């Protein structure tokens, strides 16, 4: 696959490490989350046939983490963005 890095242009996916669903960015609020929220965050994953937002770490490149929207049935990539530009607020 080719991932169109927002800063570096098209790169082979072999340069990246797959980190899993982009839902990992929505970490529960430690002050208000219930044990169920934590359980869901740590263990439950969607397995969609279709567009999937996921994290790819450019380990062999600039070390950016990208949010890649990839169709799991076609591998078509519809959007790529830098995780740190769209991430949760610290």
């Amino acid at each position, binding site marked *: *696959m*080719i991932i169109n890095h927002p800063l570096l242009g098209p790169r*082979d996916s072999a340069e990246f*490490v797959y*980190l899993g669903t982009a839902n*990992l*960015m929505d*970490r*529960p609020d*430690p002050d208000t*989350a219930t*044990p169920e929220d*934590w359980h869901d*965050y*740590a*263990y439950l994953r969607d397995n969609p046939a279709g567009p999937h937002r996921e*994290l790819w*770490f450019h*380990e062999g490149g600039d*070390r*950016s*983490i990208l949010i890649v929207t990839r169709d799991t049935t*076609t*591998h*078509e*990539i519809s959007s790529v963005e*830098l*995780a*740190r*530009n769209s*991430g*949760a*607020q*610290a």
Partner: protein
Amino acid sequence: MTQNNRLNGGQIDRNTTLNFNFDGKKYTGHPGDTLASALLANNVRLMGRSFKYHRPRGPLTAGSEEPNAIVELRSGARQEPNTRATTAELFDGLAAKSQNRWPSLAFDAMAINDRFSNFLTAGFYYKTFMWPAAFWEKIYEPIIRKAAGLGSLSMQADPDEYDKGFRHCDLLIIGAGPAGLNAALIAGRSGAEVILADEDFRMGGRLNAETFAVADLAGADWAAQTVAELSAMPNVRLMPRTTVIGAFDHGIYGAVERITDHLATSPTGKPRQILWRIYAKQTVLCAGATERPIAFENNDRPGIMLAASMRSYANRWATTPAQRVAIFTNNDDGHRTAQDLHAKGVKIAAVIDTRPDAPSSMDYEVLQGAQVADTKGRLGLTFVEVARADGTNRTIECGALGVSGGWNPNVQLTCHQRGRPIWKEELAAFVPGGTLPPYMSVAGAAVGTFSTHGALKSGADAVRKALGLKGRAPAVPQAEDAPVNQTPFWYVTGCSRAWLDQQNDVTVKDVKLSHQEGFRSVEHLKRYTTLGMATDQGKTSNMGGLAIMAELAGKSIPEVGTTIFRPPYTPTAIGTLAGRMRGKEFHPTRLTPSHFWAKERGAVFVEVGNWLRAQWFPLPGETHWRQSVDREVLATRSSVGVCDCTTLGKIDVQGTDAATFLNKVYCNGFAKLAVGKTRYGLMLREDGIALDDGTAARLAEDQFVVTTTTANAARVYQHMEFVRQCLMPQADVQLISTTEAWAQYAVAGPNSRKLLQKIVDAEFDISNEGFPFMACANITVCGGLRARLFRISFSGELAFEIAVPSRYGDALMRKLMAEGEEFDVTAYGTEALGVMRIEKGHAAGNELNGTTTALNLGMGRMVSKAKDSIGSKLAERPGLNEPDALMQVGLRPVNKDDKVTAGGHLMNTNGPVDAAHDQGYVTSAAFSPTLGSMIGLGFLKDGGNRNGETLRLVSPVTNLTVEVEVVSAHFVDPEGERVRA
């Protein structure tokens, strides 16, 4: 032997004679020949034995779709089994052997299988070798493997090199027949960056095998002229001998280029084959078509081949399988073979055409509405039995029979993503369909455009569309434009031992049996009969099987559907896929800056991830590793030792929020760590399990240096980047791995400070008061060399770790050893390091094993409740906090001489030894020279309250049962006085 089947003409160089041998016999051929064409020229039709029945076989085709003429090439370490004689380029001195026969090709003892063919039908193995199950692995499988026919391996290392490469282009054209060549010409003239790849050593495809003219040239000459024009274009790269084996995501193609396979000896420095990864913006697939056979009784004898292949042999290679041949066809294309061979002086015994209205000929007899009922000839065809339209039979003498059942477009690469071929009724064939690989279009015979004119035009159209070329289309060169006339005719009624898949020995009868026994979907048919599962992937056989299946089911072919194709298009050597990544090159080897110093000292090395680390340093006279390790431990504990710890991961954390960030990734607190201080830190995964441990040294208000274990360096860095970019994107913090930037050494033992004082520059006070336990500082050594000093200890002794820029690592190690002579300084390796950390009770990889929590490790109270950190919430789960949770303990054998082994389990002194009564397990064990016995670390249920208890350590695997006593994990200096000295 002489080449008495050589015809006139052809694209071979008759001025040069090549000598080769097959099964030990000597033959001659010419440059331009394949092994198969040269053997046919020498009147050799028999080239192999079939897989199951060991039937004599000759070539069915003249290309990479060949199922039968499978041979072993070369000898010694370069021996290569299962290669197709039809694609092996002839060179002087080539030695080939037939396979799957014993004792000889003409007399094969296993041909007895053919007599038992009634028993060896589809599903024979499944039905026969089912019981008893235990017999499968030891008895049935070895026998079957021995009897089943494939070539043999040399069992020697492959002496050739293989390589990998990357290429980029605007347009990749796959196949250099009329469609591909014309496409390349137009693309090349437009200025686009073009790659034209073809599996053959001579570009031109069918143009080389036909007598058709293109424009005012013979087809082969037009091809040669076009290739010459293309090779003069700087923007066009021709890749002959290159098979595109797979179409992957986003316009990436895999291709194998055979660099030296056609040479007698490979020139030094050249790889044998290169696996290319081609990134193409657009691709035009011009893969052509494959002729399909007709099934009839005993249709597999040597001499029976596809009619168009027979034509290829005659026109391109100037050879014929026999001087008297017949043709069996259901279409006009078969007649072309008769015409071309007749023109070359080969006697055409008859053309047997299934069509009652077949065209007749002045030159030879055409039997209209006739079919081949049977054939004769044990080691090669001698007669065919023809059933004529009027019901009479006739025997025709011939040494070869050309069979034509029409053409199948080569759709393989269109299926590698989500393409599903669709049935085209007017062609009676599957053509590319469904979703093609992105940016791919298909032209020429591969899309069902079979005429030469049609191929030239469709190649031009496809490339103009792919490149978005505007303006008037260039004229298509004049060429034949015969209409396609394919009416399906799959098999002769009433035949049973009629081969569909010759390579896997699947007959019409097997397909019928499969249907009868309920294996009726195409996927079931394929797996039950093994139709199309041989190395040729059913290129000549799948369609026949599908058609018969459809007929039996009373369905149409599109209703039954087709199986699809996966990479690789043709068999690919594992060595090619591995490239240079073999042996020690399988992964990179990382060496520390003082590696060569350690090597000079005779160190024994161990692989730790990609790193090589010194395991111990044997001295003269030491014959057992334990002698070296025990000495290194005792010397360090009594005076001073030096250990290379460069391989530990080092991550530089900088920014105004650096402390906040570390507070998030470590379960213990870092916000209040003073500048100039170091702290042990434990990282958890979000699920509460320990991830890694290490130290973080605060070198400035906004700078920390974090260390990780050697094994987890990459993983921890990745985790920290995730937290930084995904969870704390607003924080002002930057990370960079500096593992390679600093060489780092542990200097441990009561004399470590004295040793370091000799090299640390005088303005830096490293006394216990000036540089207490857990201090850290930027310093200089040896008169101004910048360095970092940490007072941390893994060994439990007074110890420091000193880091210098990598390029000074070797010099620093030598300096420490030289200055340490007065203290009898010892270099120690990872074994002694391990022994000392077990003696001190420090957890390492064996304890942080992916199942243990901070509580298990005895660090439960370290998990700060005053702040949120990764894993802190889920670490509180009740399931991880049971009252009898496993706790790390120390273990000593009750009998001093007993062994303690890691992996053993702990059981109470009495009671059964089973999983239900398991009390825990041993994670680390070593002989402690300090204590004079073996010791261990382990996890024990409620371990914190069982000090002094006696347990059984059992290891049923090694038949070990010893009594051990539960003790503190801190075997050495439990109060920690030495590290603070």
